């Protein structure tokens, strides 16, 4: 048994180690060390908790058993998961943090003595408020992440689900959460606690169903942030510094990522979470575009164009992840490099289904990270490049974001692919992208459409290059 003061100091140390874990991610070289700091911080926090309780009775064995069960499942998932499924995995993990927060809150509500919070039916007011916040946010994180997971996994349709009075219903539910929390604090009724949890689960569900598949980068970041605030709420209840620091870090991290993602789409956060984007526009555009002429080519044409280029910029998007084409792409690039062609990669902030999704896939395919550039770093290079090879991306290259104020994506920063001498577009069909808008780039003089599965097409191009 160690004193409360000593354990508080250890919790502080693990909080600092968590800060260093995030700090390490400022560059790939320091990132592995950062992750190591994070692990040490976690080991310290868990060990100190055991020592400060000092109760090594029968319960202790069960703690280890449950820890082990979770650990084995977690390790198994971590080694088995394909990199393309990373968005689903992260959404799944968020839901677990949320649920764990809810369970800890329930536990503390039912047995406040164990946490030094007063007694059942007579919990300290401050603790009860903190606990409710942790539980509410945790429950929203849980059910919201489940929906995000189902949408990403394709079990649930990625298109927005909207109905009349949706926003009013959500608003009423949010207000009822505030009222019930107030009543809970004045009556300490456990029934109200359960109702509060039920409404929170429901609202998490309702908040995410109207948000479409391509807005998932924002949703995942937002849920990331929520899971942090939930942890912080519980941290206040438990008076635990490590948990408060971590909650604040994770909360602000998710918030910043949401902001970056929204900016990448030139949309306000509220516009995204109110949802419904991409549902209505689709019907508007499906009429006339079939008439415009499109130049389409095959792998041979593409290989010819690239072979005669001196620099090629690759623009990957979600379609590359779906087709699992990252390895085939890297092989194509290797062949190009053998022919002394300069190849770089351009990544739009919202390419893929989560922040940094494309970077991880390219890293998996052994693409060195110093060949991969962000939008601002590379956008000026398109004008000097010979070929832009767009694989699985669409809206992020659409010039109407600059030229057409009527366009739903007007103002969104785009990759200036159209400035390239020629553009190769690997796509399965002419169908519009997620935003439901036609891409003028398809009909440009210097664009060659390659209608095929992204993986198959890149493999064929490689064959033709050799």
């Amino acid at each position, binding site marked *: 048994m160690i004193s409360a003061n000593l354990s508080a100091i250890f919790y502080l140390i693990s909080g600092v180690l968590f800060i260093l*874990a995030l700090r390490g*991610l*400022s560059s*790939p070289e320091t*990132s592995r060390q*950062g992750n190591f700091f994070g692990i040490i*911080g976690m080991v310290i*926090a*868990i060990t100190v*908790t*055991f020592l400060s309780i000092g*109760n090594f*009775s*029968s*319960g*202790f064995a069960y*703690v280890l058993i449950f*820890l082990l069960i979770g*650990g084995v*499942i*977690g*390790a198994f998932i971590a080694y088995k998961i394909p990199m393309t499924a990373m968005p689903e*995995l992260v959404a799944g*993990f968020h839901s*677990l943090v949320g*649920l*764990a927060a809810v*369970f*800890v809150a329930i*536990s503390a509500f*039912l*047995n406040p*003595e*164990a946490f030094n919070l007063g007694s059942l039916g007579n919990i300290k007011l*401050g603790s009860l408020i903190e606990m409710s916040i942790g539980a509410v946010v945790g429950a929203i994180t849980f059910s919201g992440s489940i929906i995000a997971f189902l949408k990403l996994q394709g079990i649930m349709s990625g298109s927005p689900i909207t109905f009349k009075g949706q926003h009013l219903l959500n608003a009423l539910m949010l207000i009822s959460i505030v009222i019930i929390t107030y009543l809970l604090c004045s009556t300490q009724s456990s029934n109200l606690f359960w109702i509060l949890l039920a409404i929170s689960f429901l609202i998490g569900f309702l908040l995410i169903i109207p948000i479409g598949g391509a807005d998932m980068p924002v949703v*995942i*970041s937002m849920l*990331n942030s929520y*899971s*942090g605030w939930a942890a912080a709420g519980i941290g*206040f209840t438990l008076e635990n*510094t490590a*948990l*408060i620091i971590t909650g*604040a*870090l*994770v909360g*602000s991290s*998710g918030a*910043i*990522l949401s902001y970056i993602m929204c900016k990448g789409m030139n949309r306000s956060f509220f516009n995204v979470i109110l949802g419904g984007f991409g549902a209505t526009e689709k019907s508007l555009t499906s009429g006339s575009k079939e008439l415009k002429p499109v130049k389409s080519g095959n792998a041979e044409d593409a290989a010819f164009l690239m072979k005669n280029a001196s620099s090629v910029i690759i623009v990957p998007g979600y379609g590359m992840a779906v087709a699992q084409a990252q390895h085939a792409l890297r092989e194509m690039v290797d062949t190009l490099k053998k022919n002394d062609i300069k190849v770089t990669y351009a990544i739009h902030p919202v390419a893929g289904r*989560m922040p*940094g*999704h494309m*970077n991880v896939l390219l*890293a998996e395919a052994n693409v*060195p*990270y*110093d060949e991969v550039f*962000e939008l601002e770093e590379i956008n000026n290079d398109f004008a000097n490049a010979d070929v832009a090879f767009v694989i699985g991306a669409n809206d992020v290259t659409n010039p109407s974001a600059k030229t057409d104020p009527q366009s739903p994506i007007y103002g969104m920063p785009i990759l200036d692919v159209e400035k390239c001498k020629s553009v190769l577009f690997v796509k399965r069909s002419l169908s519009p992208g997620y935003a439901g808008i036609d891409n003028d780039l398809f009909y440009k003089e210097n664009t060659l459409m390659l209608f095929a599965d992204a993986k198959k097409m890149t493999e064929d191009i490689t064959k033709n290059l050799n």
Partner: protein
Amino acid sequence: MEIDPFIFRLSIFILSIFIGYYVVWSVTPSLHTPLMSVTNAISSVIIVGAIIAGLAGNAENTFNTSSIFGFLAISLAAINIFGGFLVTQRMLAMYKKKKKDK
């Protein structure tokens, strides 16, 4: 008059938000996915609360409603801790620099 300990915790919280703000802005965009998985892992330090809850049952009665929720939370958080750190490590191991000898 004494300062409520809550104020100290609030101070830690607010300052940590600021630290988080500056630290996360300095994270390179190419590592945003590992950032999410590692924040997942560290936010599972909530396991601290789960352990307290799990051990709160008394000697003759290890399992009561409260401790069962605690035990379940331990497993959930452990999935995240192991899964989160390991998958982050797996991802970070893939980020390599260009080889000079080509």
